[in-house]
């Protein structure tokens, strides 16, 4: 029995020349776990909103085709924007109040859901004081409370740290397996999602171009899927295509099993080749430094404390930590936007800063004008460097568009281009990979590395461990508002518990310190030679 059935759905947003969806046919079985994936701007969110009925009701536009669906709960990408009430329990009850449910039913359900999502100890807490992960769990709880048999989630882990992301995914698995809930997950970050889902639907420019199981999806010849697959899956996909392995593992556990068999059968006598990636130049010139920093937003609580942090010329420093741990505050202090109450900040005159919200960078009617305006402000002239930025970020076709009309990933790229247009000495990027697919991340890594070659030093905040492994020279971990440790990426990401790349998790039991995809692919190729 189907929970949702779409026939020949086409949809065009108002004032847009192209259709967002074209002839989409889709059937989602009751109790199934379906993944809708695709690159940024492919129409994933539009499809989810059509199933929920938000489109065309709130957005307008023209929709054709027929749609039959059960009632679905809907969880938006940004957890903070979904919070409507002040306290946790009232937030859960809000949807039920709107449905007019009786008092006793609401009381019982709120208690059950708080226990189920593990937030009962925060019952009377203010929703604004919750962490991103807790807010997203609460948003899921609110949707479940309304008693729907299905749930649509639009990139629910897009803004969360790895710990919170894995908690959200476990919660979804439990809802699907224990409660029989139909789950439609819209996601382009497929790190740990694939092993949980029953079916994958892949969209390309508003059309369904793949439909099948996760196993078929990772081994399909459809080249564009590599844009959404994790570096981990891509490495094993290539090993499968090179006939090194019989199948493509969907999880670290599965990969470890097939690799263990392989390694046991090949009986290696010498260690595998190690990562040959450059780990950054150890130059002596310090460009930016923080010493004995203490910062507080309200003069009462200490929000950030940094004993010592130096950024050297041509270095890329990564900053990781849970949501709300003080990463963005650190960047604001480094950029000079915030002044610490105590301590010393030594920084160059021109520090570029990319905030979390790309919309803050759009003042002009077109992207081209936007970039030119920044260049005029900083007295720069148009040369090959800017052409390269536009090329790398694939913005050629978007220069005449209003930046606010672009999709999430396109907007992020546009904001990066605007910041780069000022040619800064130090570049600080707060979650630059948000909304970017694999290919664009790769291009961004290339661009940032080329900036490093030009002597610019960079600091990047991201929850994407693969991106950090491929890009950074050193990584700083912030926890509870304190800069805990700064070490080389290779050391930090190869033997951690949560802040570790999938390759690190996989190869650590074999005594191999592997964090980047290049090194992993090298090892897998070695396996072939040994075999």
């Amino acid at each position, binding site marked *: 029995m189907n929970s949702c059935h779409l026939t020949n759905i086409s949809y065009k947003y108002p004032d847009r020349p192209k259709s967002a969806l074209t002839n989409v046919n889709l059937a989602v079985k009751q109790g199934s776990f379906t993944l809708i994936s695709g690159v940024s701007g492919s129409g994933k969110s539009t499809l989810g909103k059509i199933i929920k009925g938000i489109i065309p009701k709130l957005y307008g536009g023209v929709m054709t085709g027929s749609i039959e669906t059960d009632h679905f*709960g809907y969880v938006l990408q940004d957890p903070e924007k979904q919070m409507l009430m002040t306290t946790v329990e009232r937030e859960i009850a809000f*949807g039920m109040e709107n*449905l*007019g449910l009786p008092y006793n039913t609401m009381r019982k359900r709120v208690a059950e859901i708080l226990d189920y999502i593990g937030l009962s100890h925060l019952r009377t807490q203010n929703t604004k004081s919750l962490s991103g992960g807790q807010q997203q769990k609460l948003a899921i709880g*609110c949707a479940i409370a309304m008693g729907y048999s299905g749930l649509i989630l639009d990139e629910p882990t897009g803004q969360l740290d790895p710990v919170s992301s894995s908690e959200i995914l476990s919660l979804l698995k439990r809802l699907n397996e224990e409660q029989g809930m139909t789950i439609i997950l819209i996601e382009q970050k497929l790190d740990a999602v694939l092993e949980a889902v029953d079916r994958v639907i892949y969209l390309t420019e508003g059309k369904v171009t793949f439909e099948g199981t996760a196993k078929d999806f990772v081994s399909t010849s459809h080249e564009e899927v590599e844009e959404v697959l994790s570096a981990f899956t891509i490495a094993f996909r290539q090993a499968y295509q090179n006939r090194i392995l019989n199948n493509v593992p969907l999880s670290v556990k599965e990969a470890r099993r097939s690799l263990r068999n392989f390694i046991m059968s090949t009986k290696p006598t010498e260690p595998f080749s190690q990562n040959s990636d450059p780990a950054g130049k150890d130059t002596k010139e310090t460009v930016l430094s923080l010493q004995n920093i203490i910062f507080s937003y309200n003069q009462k609580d200490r929000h950030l404390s940094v004993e010592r942090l130096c950024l050297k010329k041509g270095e890329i420093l990564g900053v990781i930590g849970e949501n709300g741990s003080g990463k963005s505050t650190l960047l604001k202090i480094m950029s*000079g*936007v915030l002044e610490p109450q105590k301590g010393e900040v030594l920084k160059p005159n021109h520090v570029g800063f990319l905030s979390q919200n790309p919309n803050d960078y759009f003042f002009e009617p077109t992207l081209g004008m936007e970039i030119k305006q920044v260049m005029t402000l900083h007295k720069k002239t148009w040369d090959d460097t800017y052409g390269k930025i536009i090329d790398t970020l694939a913005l050629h076709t978007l220069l005449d568009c209003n930046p606010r009309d672009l999709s999430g990933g396109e907007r992020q790229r546009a904001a990066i281009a605007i910041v780069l247009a000022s040619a800064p000495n130090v570049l600080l990027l707060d979650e630059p990979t948000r909304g970017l697919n694999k290919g664009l991340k790769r291009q961004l890594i290339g661009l940032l590395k080329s900036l490093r070659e030009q002597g610019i030093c960079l600091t990047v905040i991201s929850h994407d461990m693969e991106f950090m492994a491929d890009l950074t020279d050193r990584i700083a971990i912030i926890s509870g508002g304190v800069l805990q440790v700064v070490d080389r990426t290779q050391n930090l990401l190869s033997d951690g518990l949560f802040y570790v790349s999938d390759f690190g998790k996989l190869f650590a039991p074999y005594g191999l310190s592997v964090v980047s995809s290049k090194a992993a692919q090298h090892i897998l190729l070695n396996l072939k030679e040994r075999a």
Partner: protein
Amino acid sequence: MHPLIGLLSIVLLTIQLLALKHPLTVGLVLIALIATLVLTDEIAFIKKNMQYAKWPILLVLIINPLLVHLGEHVILHIRLGSWGLMITLEALVYGLVMAMKLFCIIIIFQLSVKIMDKEDIFTYMSKHCRQLTLTLSMSSNAVDALQNEYERVKMVMTTRGMNLEHVDLKSKFKHSVYLIKVVLISVLESTFHRSEALYVRHYTKSPASEYQPLRWQKRDLYCLFLEGIISLSFIYAVWQKEYDFIFYPTFTGPLQPVTVLLVIATYGIIYMGIKEQKKYEQLSFNQHKL
């Protein structure tokens, strides 16, 4: 405090303030308001919110004496050929009264969240006037968003090289226009996200029920009775022209004690509301700690 009593108090106080014209009475209202805030430890809350309102208040204060040249008592007269500037005491006092009124009204609206539980107001209004609450919810969210977005966009502009503290007035104006544009668009986007969040939670689609039913306390009934008497007295006082006061050509009209008494009585209810709300918040905090 029951949301209905809280809303009635705010409306009553605002109407009284709009009707008041005598400079001394308006000044007294301002003093009473500040005293209420000091007594209830809410002065910091108002200070924070007033930073955005200070410019319009200043504008109201300055513009009237500059544009209106009526009044008998000239305190400054400058002649520069065919152009001249005349400031009269009456126009200056009128501007001052209007600025004080604006200041008081802003504080009164901000006080509304201090005398009632936000969620109680929302639930109460959702039940009784659904569509209006939808508009109010979006508007109140826009005000919240305006403050947050302003700070964030200002920070981004500074890092981008746009100096808002520019000495050059033309550049300062241009950059301020950018700031306002982005802030307003961001506020609209934030309001749209709220409407999406409300839509997915079935807001206003069917008659709502209450998770925490609102019950009338004895104190609420006393307040309602008192508010009834104040309202009737106010109407009677307006009918008797007790609120009349003329600024031009010179100040005309006595200070009527009844108008002061009515304002103080309404403040009494608001003061009680703030105290009660604080007790309720403390109770919730203790429950959370337990």
